[in-house]
């Protein structure tokens, strides 16, 4: 693998985050087959070299074969560019751009960030909680399809629960106001903006019109980074039970098999 190969791989990965030698559900992208060829030919040594280069940017290139992971075309290989759980994301990743695309009308950055966080969590509930899927279950990406409409409804239900609990029960005023101040089709618009961002980041794929599914990259990143990030921010079990007691609809869902917060063996 020479510097030219590495440059080409880098440019491609920055754009698409993933290289598949025989894509499962889409056409080959321009140059993708040649780049897969370079990686296959370069072998473990080449991958290591590429990873040395990427490590400086806080990134990992992870290889999967048909033997490692279900859903990879027989004889095929997939490489995903994941953010390294041990490193800070590179400076050229822009959260501002993400937030700008989440804004409606004259939203502030805070409003955009709060909406992003809540839609993201409800989307994780669709991908994991509702399916009884463990956060570590990368192979579950194959059965992760959901409809745009389901996510919109999920967010609507969430906002309804927030509204029903109300400020008196101790909800934080600023967040409460942001989430309950939606008009008309705002939720649908915000969800679509969110889905667009996730697709552009290679974390979700558009399987069919209006149907999305988690990509292998999306599953890998959550499984690798969850316990180092979100895990620490989630309120503890007691706080959570208190809150949940206030809100009947969530408790009704019946999630008996949940392990909270983590099982380490």
């Amino acid at each position, binding site marked *: 693998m020479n510097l030219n190969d590495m440059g080409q791989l880098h440019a491609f990965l*920055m754009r698409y985050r993933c290289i598949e030698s025989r894509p499962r559900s889409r056409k080959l992208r321009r140059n993708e087959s040649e780049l897969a060829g370079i990686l296959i030919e370069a072998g473990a040594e080449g991958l290591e070299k590429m990873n040395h280069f990427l490590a400086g940017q806080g990134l990992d290139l992870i290889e999967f074969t048909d033997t490692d992971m279900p859903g990879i075309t027989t004889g095929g290989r997939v490489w995903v560019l994941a953010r390294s759980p041990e490193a800070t994301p590179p400076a050229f990743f822009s959260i501002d751009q993400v937030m700008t695309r989440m804004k409606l009308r004259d939203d502030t950055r805070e409003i955009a960030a709060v909406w*992003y966080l809540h839609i993201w*969590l409800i989307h994780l*509930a669709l991908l994991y909680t509702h399916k009884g899927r*463990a956060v570590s279950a990368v192979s579950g990406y194959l059965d992760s399809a959901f409809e745009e409409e389901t996510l919109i409804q999920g967010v609507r239900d969430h906002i309804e629960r927030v509204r029903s609990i109300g400020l008196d029960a101790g909800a934080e005023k600023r967040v409460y106001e942001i989430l309950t101040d939606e008009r008309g089709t705002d939720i649908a618009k915000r969800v679509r903006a969110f889905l667009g961002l996730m697709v552009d980041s290679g974390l979700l794929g558009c399987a069919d019109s209006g149907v999305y599914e988690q990509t292998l990259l999306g599953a890998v990143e959550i499984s690798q980074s969850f316990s180092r990030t979100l895990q620490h921010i989630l309120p503890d079990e007691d706080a959570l039970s208190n809150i949940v007691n206030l809100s009947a609809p969530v408790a009704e869902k019946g*999630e008996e098999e949940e392990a909270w917060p983590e099982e380490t063996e």
Partner: protein
Amino acid sequence: MTKDWISYLTAAFRLVDLHDSARSFGSAPTSLKEERTGRSDGVWLHLACHLLSYLDECDLETNEGWNPIGPFVKDMCGRHGSLNDDDVQLVISYLSTPTEVYFIKDELTKDQLRVASTKDTALIERRSIRGQTDLCRLTQRGRLAITLAKASHNWLYTHHDADKLMTALLYGEFHDIPKQCASLGQSIRAFAHEITRTMEQPGQNEVIAHFLDRGNQYLDSIRKVQTAVQNAREQLGTADVRERFNQWFEQNEGVGLDLGMIRRTLDELMQTVERLSRRFSAFLHQVTDTQREVVGAIPFEKAALAFVFQPPSLAVMDMLTGNLGAWLLEMCFGAPEDMQGILRAEIDRHQASQPKVFGEDAGATRERTVMELFVHEHRDAMFSALKAGPVRLGTALTMGWAKIGDQCHLTELVGVYSAPSWLGHGTDSIQLTLKPGSLDARVDGRTWLAGDDIEMQLIQEQGGNNEPE
């Protein structure tokens, strides 16, 4: 033992149900009744599985001979107080009574389907001697059932399948090899995926303990598969097999299989086995390591709700998005191939591609540019047409002016229509007029020109009809 039978049975139940479905063609779809008749304590299956295991064990000694059933009946009645002799006898008569299974046979030659049936379904045979002692033994079907049930669970026997590759090579059954490789590859991948899923789930201690207990046996089995494939690969290279293949190839022309393909299939299989070997070793290493970190299911909806009460700061939300959320780039990483085909290469296709020599007088040897060549080619024809009357760009295309030989020169033609001075005939004598929306012409293959047409006219007298543009 029961576990093996359950994996075997659960794989067949729906097919049996479908076989028993009495639905007639075209009748309105009804929802299926998912209620199984019979007791739901599993006792009959339990007895049957034990009976088959008992007969299988006896068979090791008697070698397809008859076995007395008495000890089994006594043992069962002793173990389960509520069972009596008749109950166990019922199980024996169930397993020994054949039932008829209907299926459709493909008649490849006649291209039609034919209904066939078989009664070869009894798992055991029974013989009464003087009405006293019951003797039983497994039928061929029963033996097959036991083999299948064992195979359903245990990957440890896969290397026997791998040995079949060598057999196929020795017997010259070359058409079987790709199929066998594919099926082996499939079973290897399924085993590897089982490992993947086991590692991803919290709990799973039973499965992990099984793999740990028998880790060496699994590694050994993987090594045996590896050796079998390796042997087959080496065998393929011998002159003997090559000769046999050539004979086979002559007899089976048009099969579309050559030695290279067989070799590649074996190579791919070899790589798959090697990957499994690495994966299984990594797995053993990982489960014995105390640091195995597996996160179970998380109630994300509750978490979202909790964040209304204890919202993270903006900085923390940014951190989350930066580490786990959508990621867009601040800048653009262009790849050279992104630019390919954006601009049309305007390299002079007619210029000699000889390298320029330093010191050579560029003026003296200068080749004509494409435009000059174009004007030179079509100038006379254009002027004679213009003398007859105005010519629109659309018309010019139909007159073949956009071409020299087979080469497309649309750019040059449009160039002349934009700057008629190229024709070198005193620009003031040519007038251009725009004809809105009237251009709609096929240029070449899939290229169309549409939009405003340009009309070119020679002005020989003052007071032409058209307004100059």
